[in-house]
């Protein structure tokens, strides 16, 4: 959850073209990518340990088909969904050259869905979900991501040509085939 939250925040900062005196622009998307891959490793570990845990009796199927487990069906199902969304995002990012920018962008937007699903999954299934440290950590993550997203929504587009391009296109568009 911590890694995923960091990844989302870095993703938002990337679109905002964040930079500072000691932090060049390229560092943000680079860190975003590396943490995302690291998160995928930990996520795999998390799924494997959950499946082989003798207490939960989860089959491997539960890791891939949402809501197919008997153990905490809803909360686990959300986890499966989050995992699949993240897998789609990572795979399309690795294959971005092949699928093109438009398709990549469309799938990447699913990140905004995967994060809350993962967080809710954590609260629903986690055996430590009620403990103080987990709650504190979660609040930290939720607050960081929320601030980042709200800030992003309030900013004008980082692309300097966004409005001019839109204006020109609006004036020059015609129905094809008179």
């Amino acid at each position, binding site marked *: 959850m911590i890694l995923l939250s960091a990844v989302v925040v870095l993703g938002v900062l990337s679109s905002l073209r964040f930079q500072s005196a000691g932090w060049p622009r390229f560092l943000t998307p680079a860190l975003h990518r590396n943490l995302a891959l690291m998160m995928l490793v930990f996520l795999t570990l998390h799924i494997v340990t959950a499946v082989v845990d003798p207490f939960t009796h989860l089959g491997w199927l539960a890791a891939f088909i949402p809501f197919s487990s008997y153990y905490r069906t809803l909360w686990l199902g959300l986890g499966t969904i989050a995992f699949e969304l993240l897998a789609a995002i990572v795979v399309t990012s690795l294959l971005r050259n092949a699928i093109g920018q438009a398709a990549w962008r469309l799938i990447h937007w699913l990140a905004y869905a995967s994060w809350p699903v993962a967080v809710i999954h954590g609260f629903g299934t986690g055996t430590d979900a009620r403990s103080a440290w987990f709650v504190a950590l979660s609040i930290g993550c939720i607050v960081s991501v929320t601030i980042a997203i709200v800030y992003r929504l309030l900013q004008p587009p980082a692309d300097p040509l966004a409005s001019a*391009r839109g204006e*020109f*296109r609006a004036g*020059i*568009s*015609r129905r*094809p*085939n*008179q």
Partner: protein
Amino acid sequence: MSGLRLLAGPDVGAGAEGYADHVRRLGQPTLAGRALIEALVRSGLTGRGGASFPAGLKWRALASASKGSAVIVVNGAEGEPQSHKDRLLMTKRPHLILDGAFLAARTLRAASVVVYVGEEHRAAYAAMERALRERHEAERRITRMAAAPHRYVAGESTAAVHLIDAGIATPTTTPPHPRERGVAAAPTLMQNVETLGHIALIARYGDAWYRSVGRRGAAGTLLVTIAGGVAKPGVLEIEAGTTIAEAVAMRGGLSEPACAVLLGGYFGNWLPAAKAWDLPLDAEALRAGGLGLGCGVVGVQPASRCGVCDTARIMRYLAEESSAQCGPCFFGLRALSDACSRVAERGTNRDDMARLKRWAAEVEGRGACKHPDGLVMFLRSALSTFSDEFASHPAHWRQQPA
């Protein structure tokens, strides 16, 4: 020799020549297929849309690329504000143009023809539409009209393709060029209306006939628009190789003393008058001198007008006509235009002059299309032609109409 070929026939003031009259006067084309393409190559006919590319070579390339699905775009968009020749040809001799278009369609095995005319050029649009209705069913069936939006870049090849395909007339990245992948991803012939008119005549009379007129070693005829400080501004059909001075004389001579000439419209070059008068109006000859015929606009600049202020005015227009797709073009052209306007309004200063030179070098070649390059070429020719005026321009902004 009157020089009239495209404009030969009924008086130009009489309106469009109808199909029946057109056929009665000129008969039908006799050259077709490979024979026509080779005749075009031998004729040396160059495109009249601005790039002056040899038409025969263009057709050869498309003939090999076409697999029966090629598209012919009849480009009558005429985005250059000072040019009127395409409109004149469309309103008076639409069937010459359509003949050229359908010759292209048959020769290049095209599946469709699109007639692209400026939406604001209503008379020309109507004339082409009406002429189309007079044609045979087989020709009408594969043809449609398309209106070019009233913007400078709308006539650019990729912008035209973009409009026809997707309804938005903004230039797109090349490669691929329209000749490889254009309308509906098919090889597309983008040909200016005047060029098609010449082709319609060459298909009847041959390349030797085309080359039988011309001055100073040039061949054929061409349409030019004489604008600015002349007694009778307007369109003229001249023999290729006619000098600018001779062409100006044909339009009644100068209306007042001139200091410079803008050759080729806004996408062209300023020249000092003394250098301009003896220049032959021929694409090849001008290219040899590092100049271009462009769309054939000869803008005569009266000495009473301020070259710096007019340059600033035209640069502002060109900057505002950027399609805002590429940063260097949108921001660079505005910055160049602002610097030039400051010189025009507040007087010469070293900083703005330095900016003009620096940004011109930075902006050149860094757009997806040639729009920024056109402005840079225009600006550099202005700095050269009006160097004295730029060096000591007073703080005025002559509110002279365009």
